[in-house]
């Protein structure tokens, strides 16, 4: 994997240092904030990490009146962009998701919790997709967070302050677990576990205590070692090979393997062994030769920190998990060993994961995925315009001050100037709101136009970057045109003033039917020349006849 696009349903703080583990050594790009649908419909030749908080996709109050059936319908709508991508590219898509919300244990105790049920169906929908599409990888963040302590992973202050649902700790767990999955794309799983015997497969030193003296059984410490063996046995079931390297007399070790009633691993489970008094390095090298495998396919399990350190220095290619002093922690540790984990039990070579299992011509109901426009229609966008009244001045100021990307002129209006605009008869202005299937997005845009008889000049045209990729700018332009026409305007003059950050708006005016304004070509008496003084010399200026201007892309909005 060389190229990764990272996108989320809320702010992921792309420049937070926790992302370094993911982005190091690859070309990683965060794009615009919350532009995930664009990503899903966009470049099919890069890997994608999509971080989803279900609450961003579906408003909790909407979950309340859903029967399970209609919830499934709505879920398929929010998953549509993902399915579209999966059907169109073999490049991996990793979906890291959280469905968690605070809820009362009381409501959860009698099926009253519609949210929990919604979360469950979202999760199972993702699992179904993963079954169908081999390029889909899923990461259940709630499980990752639960292990650490969920309360420390989310941060409401970060959410209300800058739309980032996670704390630094949560971000670290997200990036770390995502990296563990992503790195498996390039680094195949280890193939062989080489395990020590005394105090690793069983408790005690065999040479001293004899077969009947070792700890292995169904109680206490003996049960710990039984479980360690069971864990290794499960890895065997997934295709991992097991070898033994032990400093012992060989016949004593076979005595345990053949005769001890609680041995889970049997002699014929082993692919190779070296039971002797040679150093472990030579034994490992010999086994590698025997199996014709590189040492980088090996995991070495040994309770002795001395042996581990020695192998680490002499054979750095070998993976050597640190085994904690407390042996009771080993079974769970072995069960979750990343080095051995593969994406599926039958994957023979996971390096090929991107080209892997190219299921031909799979079409489900979900994959009848139309294009982007169809998706936009299906989310039922209902934009609205609001008068710039006194109680909205603060929000309007925020939009002026904070919006850097979709901002045609980046005029930093403040409350006093906006108040003037809202009362001065030579200005027309409105705020833009948007509601859709994902919920109510609030006030997301602002337009201010200055009127001089039949000509209007666009003073401000601002859209929150959360709203890009939805053609909302087209709707806003149409709204402006309607407003200006009802004020007897015939002409519109607008300009794009480039800054370091607003390139996303660069082609907006020309894409929407406005014509470059060249003063030389216009008669001096043309009405638009009334705005000549307002147009900046370093701007890209455009104009349009308000009666002829046809705005594209309006069909995605509900009428």
């Amino acid at each position: 994997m060389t190229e990764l696009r990272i996108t989320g349903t809320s702010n992921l703080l792309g420049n937070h240092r926790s992302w370094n583990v993911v982005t190091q050594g690859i070309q990683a790009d965060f794009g615009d904030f919350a532009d995930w649908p664009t990503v899903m419909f966009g470049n099919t030749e890069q890997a994608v990490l999509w971080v989803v908080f279900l609450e961003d996709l579906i408003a909790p109050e909407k979950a309340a009146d859903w029967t399970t059936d209609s919830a499934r319908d709505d879920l398929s709508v929010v998953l549509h962009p993902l399915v579209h991508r999966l059907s169109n590219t073999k490049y991996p898509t990793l979906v890291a998701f959280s469905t968690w919300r605070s809820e009362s244990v009381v409501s959860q105790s009698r099926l009253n919790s519609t949210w929990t049920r919604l979360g469950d169906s979202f999760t199972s929908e993702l699992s179904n997709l993963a079954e169908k599409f081999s390029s889909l990888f899923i990461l259940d963040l709630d499980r990752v967070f639960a292990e650490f302590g969920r309360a420390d992973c989310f941060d409401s202050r970060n959410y209300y302050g800058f739309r980032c649902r996670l704390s630094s700790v949560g971000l670290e767990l997200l990036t770390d677990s995502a990296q563990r999955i992503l790195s498996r794309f390039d680094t195949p799983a280890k193939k062989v576990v080489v395990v020590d015997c005394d105090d690793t497969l069983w408790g005690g030193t065999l040479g001293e205590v004899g077969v009947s003296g070792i700890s292995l059984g169904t109680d206490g410490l003996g049960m710990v070692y039984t479980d360690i063996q069971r864990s290794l046995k499960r890895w065997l079931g997934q295709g991992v090979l097991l070898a033994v390297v032990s400093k012992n007399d060989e016949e004593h070790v076979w005595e345990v393997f053949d005769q001890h009633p609680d041995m889970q691993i049997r002699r014929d489970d082993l692919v190779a062994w070296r039971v002797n008094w040679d150093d472990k390095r030579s034994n490992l090298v010999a086994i590698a030769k025997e199996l014709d495998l590189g040492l980088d396919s090996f995991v070495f399990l040994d309770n002795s920190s001395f042996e581990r350190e020695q192998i680490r220095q002499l054979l750095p290619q070998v993976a050597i998990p640190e085994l904690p002093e407390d042996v009771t922690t080993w079974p769970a540790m072995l069960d979750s060993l990343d080095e051995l984990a593969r994406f599926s039990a039958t994957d023979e070579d996971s390096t090929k994961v991107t080209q892997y299992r190219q299921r031909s011509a799979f079409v489900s109901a979900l994959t009848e995925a139309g294009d982007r426009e169809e998706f936009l229609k299906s989310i039922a966008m209902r934009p609205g315009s609001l008068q710039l009244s006194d109680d909205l001045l603060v929000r309007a100021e925020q939009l002026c001050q904070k919006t850097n990307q979709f901002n045609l002129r980046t005029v930093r209006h403040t409350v006093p100037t906006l108040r003037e605009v809202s009362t001065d008869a030579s200005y027309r202005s409105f705020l833009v709101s948007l509601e859709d299937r994902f919920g109510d997005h609030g006030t997301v845009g602002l337009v201010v136009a200055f009127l001089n008889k039949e000509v209007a000049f666009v003073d401000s045209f601002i859209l929150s970057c959360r709203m890009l990729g939805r053609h909302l700018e087209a709707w806003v332009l149409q709204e402006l045109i309607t407003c200006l026409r009802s004020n007897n305007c015939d002409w519109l003059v607008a300009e794009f003033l480039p800054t370091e950050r607003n390139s996303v708006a660069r082609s907006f005016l020309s894409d929407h039917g406005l014509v470059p304004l060249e003063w030389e070509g216009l008669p001096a008496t043309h009405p638009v020349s009334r705005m000549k003084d307002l147009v900046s010399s370093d701007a890209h200026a455009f104009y349009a006849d308000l009666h002829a201007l046809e705005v594209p892309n309006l069909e995605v909005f509900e009428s």
Partner: protein
Amino acid sequence: MILADLAGLLEKQFPDADIPESFLGLSMGSFPDWDSLGHISLLLSIEEHYGIRFSLEEMESLSNMQNIASALKSHGVGS
């Protein structure tokens, strides 16, 4: 001590920027990387470094290094 730490945190967050000796005059926007997102990551790294937590209200007022330094004092850092 605080000042040296802060300079270090600034450098870590904005490795491409030249941090001047007297950086207390710097504020959000002083160099291109220090945009609103970069600013948030800087504040979070400061919180982590000192083991403190700013309220949302505080965060909104911490747009320059001078204010950040005095907020650290009011959180008992360095005393």
